[in-house]
């Protein structure tokens, strides 16, 4: 059907060409305009006016809601379908650039992190079970006389307290005994997680983060740990920040490592322009003092 459609240059792996051949053999040609809405490559700046309707080379960009028939329109509502392609972009540097399209469009348009919580019917848990969980959480919060502060920690603390009413103190910290905290980097909605228990210093953690975010997945060489992390000494284009227990955002490295580990809730790798107001940047000398 959409066999008559012009395909995006450089954006379609073999699969798409296979598709279009099949299609033109099987289906009558159809007005192409209405199909253009299906995918909005972010390189749309370059390729406005073209669109691929079916089976592109990569990425899990499904149909887009709210898309209309205008050519090369970028204004579509992002759905969870975009996420896999974002991740695959980072992991599949050599892959079909079809993946990149959706990924970049996501990075341009999305501001907030997205994950399992924003997709209809996902994770696949029966409505009945979800209602039970919600009722359970409500019951817990109700019992604890919650003041209504909408902190995500609260219900879990309440639950844990209730479960330990035999008087034993548990040492489960707010992150759970795994020690994982979520890390987001500006420009990519899906975050990663880093296990703080696996590190004993800022340098070690920063190197891990750099490996995770700022290097190609296939890179084999790793800088020796003795070299100062670019993230920490200010020579990187990014700045490492964290949210503490009180909800304040701070520059990483201000406090001793142990204190940091016990108070950090999550991390964010920011662009310097957004890090204004977080205080002076620390030098690497400060880090070694604080370890």
């Amino acid at each position, binding site marked *: 059907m959409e066999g008559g459609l012009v395909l995006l240059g450089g954006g379609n792996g073999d699969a798409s060409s296979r598709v279009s051949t099949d299609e033109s053999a099987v289906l009558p040609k159809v007005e192409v305009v209405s199909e253009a809405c299906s995918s909005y490559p972010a390189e749309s700046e370059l390729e406005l006016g073209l669109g691929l309707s079916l089976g592109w080379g990569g990425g*899990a960009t499904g149909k887009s809601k709210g898309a209309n028939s205008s050519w090369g329109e970028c204004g579509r509502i992002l759905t969870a379908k975009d996420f896999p392609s974002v991740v695959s972009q980072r992991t599949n540097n050599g892959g079909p650039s079809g993946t990149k399209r959706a990924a970049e469009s996501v990075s341009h348009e999305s501001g907030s992190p997205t994950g399992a919580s924003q997709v209809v019917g996902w994770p696949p848990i029966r409505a009945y079970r979800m209602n039970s969980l919600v009722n359970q959480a409500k019951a817990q919060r109700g019992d604890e006389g919650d003041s209504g502060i909408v902190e995500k920690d609260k219900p879990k603390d309440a639950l844990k307290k209730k479960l330990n009413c035999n008087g034993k103190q548990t040492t489960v910290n707010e992150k759970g005994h795994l020690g994982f905290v979520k890390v987001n980097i500006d420009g990519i909605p899906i975050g990663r997680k880093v296990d703080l228990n696996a590190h004993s210093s800022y340098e070690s953690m920063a190197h891990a983060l750099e490996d995770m975010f700022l290097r190609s997945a296939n890179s084999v060489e790793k800088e020796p740990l003795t070299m100062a992390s670019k993230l920490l000494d200010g020579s990187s284009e990014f700045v490492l920040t964290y949210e503490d227990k009180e909800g304040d955002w701070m520059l990483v490295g201000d406090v001793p490592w142990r204190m940091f580990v016990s108070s950090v809730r999550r991390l964010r790798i920011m662009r310097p322009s957004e890090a204004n107001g977080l205080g002076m940047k620390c030098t690497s000398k400060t880090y070694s003092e604080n370890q």
Partner: protein
Amino acid sequence: MESSELKRSKDSVNSCESARRSSFPDEVLERVLSLLKSHRDRSSVSLVCKDWYNAERWSRTHVFIGNCYSVSPEIVARRFPRIRSVTLKGKPRFSDFNLVPENWGADIHAWLVVFAAEYPFLEELRLKRMAISDESLEFLAVSFPNFKALSLLSCDGFSTNGLAAIATHCKNLTELDIQENGIDDIGGSWLSCFPESFTTLEVLNFANLTSDINFDALEKLVGRCKSMRVLKLNRSVSLEQLQRLLVNAPQLAELGTGLFSQELTIREYEELESALSNCKNMHTLSGLWDATGIYLPALYLACTHLTFLNLSYAALQSVELAKLLAHCPQLKRLWVLDTVEDKGLEAVGLNCPLLEELRVFPADPFDDEIVHGVTEAGFVAVSFGCPRLHYVLYFCRQMTNAAVATIVQNCPDFTHFRLCIMNPGQPDYLTNEPMDEAFGAVVRTCTKLQRLSVSGLLTDLTFEYIGRYAKNLETLSVAFAGRSDWGMQCVLGGCPKLRKLEIRDCPFGNAALLSGLEKYESMRSLWMSACNVTMNGCRLLAREMPWLNVEVMKEDGSDDSQADKVYVYRSIAGPRRDAPPSVLTL
């Protein structure tokens, strides 16, 4: 036994074709075939020859209909005159996750009307994902004097008033099993509708309901139904009330407690513990809402012969679970919440060598911020300790290819492998690679695999593996995966035993859809939502395959040409006439 008898019968039929009427009476054949229980065996038998077809249809007493729209009640009644038990499944499975419009269909009423006329002696009705109204329940209650067993799983459209009708009118009821339904819970008075003279109940499951029931009525009911073997209470029943019930029903084989949290005196606790331990036949335990460490020990003595423990409504921690499992050496099936974490699962591996099924549900599926729950380590730990594991449903936030490879090496007998990495499209968190190799390992190693749910970042390679190796796969669920049509084409081109394929949010389009033309007739159904299928592709499919019903559900505001949700299924009843306006039949 059955197969050798059948073989002999078949040989004798074939060898004396002309004399068959005198040498092999139909009654004998019917008698032999009546011993066949499996509906698949019966389907095979009915294809042998005309005589066998007839003998089979006259001897069949239970009919299983996996898709209520694949056949009409009239056709069923015409073919099988002596049915006493019916199992019907309706909506596509993704309706459980709110992906199917409210009024989609699968209403039982038309079936009941035909059954009332053709099967007045109907005894059992088991429904899954059907719509059933209170009027239908009342009609059921008064139309079938011999009615014995009603089981409703994941159904909707009814309220407790309908249950009241069943309780009031079904004098011979042995089973009332209400599970995980969208029921309108108006109040608990329905339970008081069982007459004083009523004593036949064997199975009572109302765990689904939330409102208070009249405990006095329940206590009397349990007291006079001496054959009761399954009792699953709802949250409103307290520990103290549980104890009173158990004292009168020590014969229970399956128990679902109510709320497992209450202030008890020492004496009350001991009485509870004693009542529980007196249930010597108990092999299944569930309920346990809000169970805490304090009262779990009351269960210890009752767990000795336990084979199925459902803790999926109790947010236990690892230590509590470990202590409990030490008393459950016979456990074969375990359902838990991921609050038990990897340490809890290590305890599973250590204490439950006979374990065959494990389900780990997320306590907090929508909280991305704080990480907790289980990881690949927990799953691996279970696989080392439980080599007989063959059914797994595992919700987690991280997984690696290496871990899955280890798991299936330890447990090669998987028949059901359902892995849900909750963040859509997430790669192997250590190597950053897609999870292709994980599922490749699963399908290569687990040759008995019947059901597979995949997740995480997956390219078409996963589907190449599935198509190539999963020879026994019957059900495949895919979400946020694949790169191109090729993936789906691999599955449709391989997997000879595929019956159900459900796909959401994948880049599969018309080429993929149309590559399975012949395949769909050997399948029960195909679901594709939020993929790249268009209306024209669906129309073509419908045109080419007259025995398939092709239904498209459109969403508000979507493009006219996109087929947002597609449901394709084979049917001998033709297109259905009860579809709501949002469902287009092509």
